[in-house]
């Protein structure tokens, strides 16, 4: 094999060859409309596999925000409620109050949760609402074509911060997990990233812990997942994971921020093999 084939900083010259097909049991198919290199389908997989592994499939209801991930609902073998942009935590609140023994998660983007719906996710956390909010943070409105959100990092170029996000013009990014973790009603808060395999595995550990926290009735849980959006960042597909880890990951630090009601501020979740011993993976 030549060096050329092994380079990972740009897509292969020739079309990729499908060597196998895998999908989580709770996924209805493998075909989606999201961009090549998008991190959101990976994040979805961590959710679906965690539900399946916890044996909660017939008791789970998803409440979906509006962003690129909305198109993934056609793949989800789950009872769903589609919310308006920003409003998923309220819908999940009302539904959970009526069905307290079901598992409820919201699926929201940074535009959805940190911009349009910031007030309601804060209140849901403060109330200790027994739901899990999942934030897919790619630092842009991916769906509208790559515009600045409240989590866009300083210097990041978007379609409405062409010279890069400048604090004097556009203010500072909000770190959602850092913001929500200290609230009294928050029982579990963590930020993962799907930029590489180890990140995916750690994210899944977080997802399971959040769901377990909810099923024990301990209160609000938030899992933020950093996801690639090469299209919205205007970077080549193959550079997405690196950009995510180095640019967004430097500001939105991964790790567990609260567990069992204790503030940890960015602790590494225990290593996957340790978690495996405890039956988590």
């Amino acid at each position, binding site marked *: 094999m030549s060096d050329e084939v092994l380079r990972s900083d740009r897509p292969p010259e020739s079309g990729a060859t499908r060597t196998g097909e895998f999908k989580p049991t709770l996924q209805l198919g493998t075909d989606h409309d999201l961009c090549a290199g998008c991190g959101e389908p990976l994040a979805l997989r961590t959710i679906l596999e965690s539900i399946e592994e916890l044996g909660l499939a017939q008791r789970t209801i998803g409440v979906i925000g509006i962003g690129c991930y909305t198109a993934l609902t056609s793949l989800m073998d789950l009872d769903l409620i589609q919310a308006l942009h920003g409003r998923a935590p309220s819908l999940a609140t009302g*539904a959970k*109050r009526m069905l307290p023994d079901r598992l409820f998660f919201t699926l929201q983007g940074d535009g959805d949760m940190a911009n349009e719906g910031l007030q309601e996710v804060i209140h849901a956390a403060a109330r200790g609402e027994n739901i899990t909010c999942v934030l897919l943070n790619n630092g842009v409105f991916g769906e509208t074509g790559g515009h600045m959100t409240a989590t866009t990092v300083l210097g990041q170029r978007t379609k409405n911060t062409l010279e890069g996000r400048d604090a004097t013009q556009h203010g500072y990014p909000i770190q959602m997990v850092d913001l929500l973790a200290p609230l009294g009603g928050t029982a579990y808060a963590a930020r993962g990233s799907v930029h590489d395999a180890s990140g995916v595995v750690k994210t899944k550990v977080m997802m399971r812990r959040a769901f377990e926290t909810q099923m024990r009735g301990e209160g609000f849980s938030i899992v933020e997942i950093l996801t690639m959006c090469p299209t919205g960042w205007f970077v080549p597909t193959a550079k997405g994971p690196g950009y995510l880890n180095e640019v967004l990951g430097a500001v939105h630090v991964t790790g567990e921020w609260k567990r069992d009601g204790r503030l940890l501020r960015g602790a590494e979740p225990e290593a996957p093999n340790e978690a495996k011993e405890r039956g988590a993976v």
Partner: protein
Amino acid sequence: MSRRFMQGSEAIAEAAIAAGCRFFAGYPMTPFTELLEHFAAKLPAEGGVCVNAESELEAIGMAWGAVATGARAATGSTGQGLSLMQESISELVRAELPLVLFNLARGQGDYYQATRGGGHGDYRHLVLAPVDLTEAVQLTQLAFDRAECWRNPVLVYGDYLLAHTAEAVAIEPVAFDPLPSKDWAVDGSRSGSGSPRNLNPIGMVPGKKGIEPERFWKRLQAKHEAMAAAEARWEAESTDDAELLVVAFGSVARFTRFAVRELRAEGARVGHFRPVTLWPFPSEALAEAARGVKRVAVLEQNAGQMIDDVRLALEGRVKVVAIGGISSDDAGFGVGPMLEPERIRARVGAALAGREVQP
């Protein structure tokens, strides 16, 4: 059933709970506040939940989530709060969810908001306007029934007088026909089945990529046309030989009806027409009631909103005059000096005599 002396807010909350409402969320605002208070006090004992939402946006979001599980749920506010809810109301119509909404408004200035709405796209929902507490108790129960029958939100539109006036009232249960099963409600039972439910306002189907907006919206249009044909409700009095027909709705109609009855008793040829549903507006019934009259006088407590629907119903065949107008107390709660039986009578009398009425 025994009657109790109750404020409107309490009677409406009790009627809703009697109809099976088990979830309410709201944010205080006069004159709606007491409705929230009564739900907060009464729902827990019935196994229900009342959430003090952080804003009206959250209130309607929470009620949306509750109703999506198949529970009977409601929210509400005063016109201002309903303004904030408009995006959700229009999308609840498209998600086909039977949420019941209450607007306990400051006067009658929200007629356009109630019947046209400020939400986006083509959407329609029933609007019920009770004249008094006894009717409010019935219409509140009807609202839950019709909402589920059509899988469509229903708005109950009252005002300060309805909410804050105490009357002796019985919470008589209304009997309704059986409703279709709620197999659309999400409870997680179809998760992992290969054919899950997706309650959404955009016409998405699980397992299918993309949407078919045109087909979806046309189906809703057909449903709303069927609702319009089936749901008009009204009350008509003394219309047979009337020369003047007075049209009014809600609490204000209680004053106009009283004045018309007095004038009738004195021999005046005056009739009364009250739409009970503001949408669908009972256009055909009004046209029928107005046959042979010389003049139709609309008395509403606003700058002139329902008068549009009256004119549309009559298609220029009869002269339509406005005899109401803006009238408020100093706090802006819509309890204006116009709402005096003597003044209302004077306005109706002027219309009978063919004199113009200054708003």
